[in-house]
C-alpha cells in the first residue's frame, strides 16, 4: 500500500512531465526527454539538476563509439516519491468524488 504524499518538487508542471516520462522508462536519452517535453537543452539540464540534487534522478554519460550519450533515470527514491505523489493526486480526485478517465483529461462527478 502506497502512502499518499504530495510532492511539491515533482508537481511543478515541467518536472511532472519529466518524472512521468522517466517513470515509464528504465532509462531515457536526454534528447528524447527534451523533444518530448519541449524544452531547451539548458532548461532541461536545470530541471534534471534540481531532480538530481533531490536524489530523484540519476544522470549518466556513456560513450557509443566516439559519440557521447547522456541519459537519465529515476532512482529508487524518485520512483517511490513519484508513486506517493500519484497516490496523493488520486486521493484528491477521489475525495472530490470524481473519476478520472484514463484516456483523456476529462472527468466527471459521480455523485
Amino acid at each position: 500500500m502506497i502512502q499518499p504524499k504530495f510532492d511539491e518538487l515533482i508537481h511543478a508542471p515541467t518536472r511532472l512531465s519529466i518524472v512521468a516520462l522517466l517513470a515509464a522508462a528504465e532509462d531515457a536519452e536526454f534528447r528524447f526527454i527534451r523533444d518530448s517535453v519541449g524544452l531547451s537543452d539548458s532548461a532541461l539540464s536545470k530541471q534534471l539538476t534540481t531532480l538530481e540534487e533531490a536524489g530523484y534522478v540519476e544522470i549518466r554519460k556513456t560513450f557509443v563509439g566516439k559519440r557521447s550519450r547522456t541519459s537519465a533515470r529515476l532512482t529508487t527514491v524518485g520512483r517511490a516519491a513519484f508513486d506517493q505523489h500519484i497516490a496523493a493526486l488520486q486521493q484528491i480526485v477521489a475525495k472530490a468524488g470524481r473519476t478520472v478517465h484514463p484516456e483523456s483529461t476529462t472527468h466527471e462527478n459521480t455523485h
Partner: protein
Amino acid sequence: MSERINPDEAARALAEIRRRKEQVTVLSRIPGWFRWAVALLAIALASGLDTGEPLFIGVGVTVFTLGLLTALGVVIGHGWSRAVPRRDLLGPRAALVIVAFIALILLVNLPTTFILQAAGSPIPATVGALAGAVVIIAGGPIVARYLHRLANDGDRR
C-alpha cells in the same frame, strides 16, 4: 500543501502522467513492416527447405537468420536508443499473449506442412510458411493493440 491543489488540477496532473507514459510505451510498439519482414523471411527459409538442395537450404537459413537479426536490431535500436520502456510495464499477461501467438503461428504452419508433405505436395514447407505468414500479418496488429493497451492500463496511473 496538497490542500492548495484542487481536484481539477489533480485530475489534469494525472492525465498528463498518463500522456507521458504513452509517449514511452509507444516506443515498444512493433512497427507493421516487422511482421511483413518476418513473414517473408519465413517463406524464404521454407522455400529453401523445399528444394532439398543443401546450397539452397544454406542460403535460406542464412537469409532468415541475418534478416531476422537485422530487423530486430533496427526495431530495438530505433526505439530503445531514445528510451528503454520499463521492463515491468507489460507484466506476465503480455508474455503469455506473445507465447500464445507464437504457438498459434506454429499450430497453423507445422500441421499444414506435414499434411501437405503426406499428400505429396512438392512445396509443403512453403505453403505451411505462407499459412503462418497469414496469421502473422492478420493477427499481429491485434496482438500489438492488446499489448499496447496492457502497457497503458497495466498500472492505473
